[in-house]
């Protein structure tokens, strides 16, 4: 008996030690995987930090040279003697105005599509049309630029712009906003291309939040005799307001930073003109077209513009996210 138990005991002791080491190995690997994922997650934060630090370092010479005047000076003369004169007002103005005009066009159209898709469209066509509109977001921005330059620009310059210029010829204020000559490259053309590009963002967010409205609310409104539009205006839009504004801000964030499409059609002029049919430039277009050939303080000024753009889009997108989170929480509750 004892002869039999001894090896068995020894065996079980060995296997216990073995088990211990296997478990130890598993625990180590478990730990390693945990830290691998945790470090990757922290890297997302590090990227944000890296972007800010590298932009600030790059922009520092320009900040030192121009200070706050950078925000108020319009003249952009990298080759001026003895010192380059660089003011960012032109591209900042172009960025803000082109995005605002784009939103003024895209918001009603985008909401219109979302209303069509949720209320009017036959069930069978909903998904295909929604997909088609969302595919607009997939087209690379350089393609929009080429299309805007070769197709849309000439069309607008020949037909739309002369019509507007003529119509508002003798109206005070508006005659300056819609002032000729018509041009293939203009702030308005850039706005229109931007509007088309951000359309899918507005439509898809609006459609998603429209679908969160409890059917009972809509049915109650229809039941007391409301028309479709009245239901949208008095029930659906108030209920989804936060989410819709979030979607609009998201689209605005996109429009502010869009680069290639704008570079092709805006004409790269740093001069601010009251007319929206005149060439202009945006921050991203200025960087795209000048950065590779720029040096010293010129390059630094472009990075400073980039820093301003990043701060601006950061706040717009942050507001968008906060609103969308609020909308989501409400629909979940």
């Amino acid at each position: 008996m004892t002869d039999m138990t001894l090896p068995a005991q020894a065996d079980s002791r060995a296997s216990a030690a073995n088990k211990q080491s296997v478990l130890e190995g598993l625990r180590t690997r478990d730990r390693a995987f945990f830290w691998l994922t945790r470090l990757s997650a922290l890297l997302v934060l590090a990227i944000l930090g890296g972007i800010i630090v590298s932009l600030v370092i790059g922009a520092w010479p320009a900040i030192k040279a121009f200070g706050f005047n950078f925000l108020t000076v319009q003249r952009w003369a990298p080759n001026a003697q003895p010192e380059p004169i660089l003011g960012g007002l032109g591209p900042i103005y172009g960025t803000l105005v082109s995005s605002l005009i784009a939103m003024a066009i895209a918001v009603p159209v985008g909401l219109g599509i979302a209303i069509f898709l949720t209320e009017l469209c036959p069930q069978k066509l909903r998904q295909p049309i929604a997909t088609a509109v969302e595919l607009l977001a997939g087209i690379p921005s350089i393609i929009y630029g080429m299309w805007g330059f070769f197709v849309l620009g000439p069309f607008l310059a020949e037909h739309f712009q002369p019509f507007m210029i003529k119509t508002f010829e003798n109206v005070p204020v508006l005659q300056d906003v819609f002032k000729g000559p018509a041009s293939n490259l203009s702030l308005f053309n850039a706005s229109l291309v931007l509007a088309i590009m951000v359309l899918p963002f507005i439509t898809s967010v609006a459609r998603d939040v429209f679908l969160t409205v409890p059917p009972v609310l809509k049915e109650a409104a229809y039941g007391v005799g409301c028309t479709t539009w009245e239901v949208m205006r008095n029930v659906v839009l108030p209920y989804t307001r936060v989410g819709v504004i979030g979607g609009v801000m998201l689209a605005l964030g996109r429009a502010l930073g869009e680069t290639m499409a704008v570079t092709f059609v805006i004409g790269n002029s740093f001069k601010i003109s009251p007319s929206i049919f005149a060439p202009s430039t945006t921050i991203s277009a200025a960087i795209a077209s000048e950065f590779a050939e720029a040096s010293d303080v010129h390059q630094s000024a472009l990075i400073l513009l980039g820093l301003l753009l990043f701060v601006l889009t950061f706040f717009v997108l942050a507001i968008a996210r906060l609103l969308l989170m609020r909308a989501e929480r409400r629909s979940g509750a």
Partner: protein
Amino acid sequence: MNAFSPPGYAARKRVNEIIMGLCVAATALGLVWLFLILVTLLWNGISGVSLAVFTEMTPPPNAHGGGLLNAIVGSLIMTAIGIAIGGPIGLFAGTYMAEYGRHEKLTTVIRFINDILLSAPSIIIGLFIYGAVVVPMHGFSGIAGALALAVIVIPVVVRTTENMLLLVPQQLREAAAGLGVPRSKVIRDVAYRAAKTGLITGGLLAVARISGETAPLLFTALSNQFWSIDLTKEMANLPVTINNFINNPDPNWKRLAWAGALIITFAVLALNIAARSLSSRNASK
């Protein structure tokens, strides 16, 4: 009949009809843009697409023939490296947020920042990589371009990974954990497997997102007139080549630019549609 129509009903009905008509018009407008862009691309690009585009190098200015081989290969290399670097990082970061830190404050912060990076202007990413890679390396390089693309890939993959893992039923994890399976193995062999289609969709969307990106490559990879697969030198790529060729009066370059634009757009749209059908098939299952 009139007894059933309250006063002012006709006017309200008319307003409704006008606005609904405008909604239909808005939809038509949206679809017309897509159609017009695709038609323009086909019209200008189809004549330029030939076998030579895929087998010959980019030609010098004012020459005949030539293709886009070096640009296509360069784009493929940089996209592959961008995905190879950004994909796993995004996957692991999303895994942490959904599996380990689901209820942590840190996860909320990372999700917020990630969503902002997701929509951050891509030209800013280019400036970041310029400062972080190009300047220290003293020159434009293929690897800098690939890193810029990787930075764009990460938020896309983080977002889809987290969303997809959150959809995996908790019972699956509990069942595996109950058998004594270590947590990391539960994640890799149960959660990943259950979310496989979604994760692949995320990868496809990331590829689609970066294959058309031009702005972040303008001053990271630059471009290259010649064949080069040296990652430390300027590397040719399709978007920047299109950008350079289309802005040149040379008709041969213009022809190639349109052909390249056609190729890139249909590749991106195909990827988007593939990702969509994959995820909708998964959803209906």
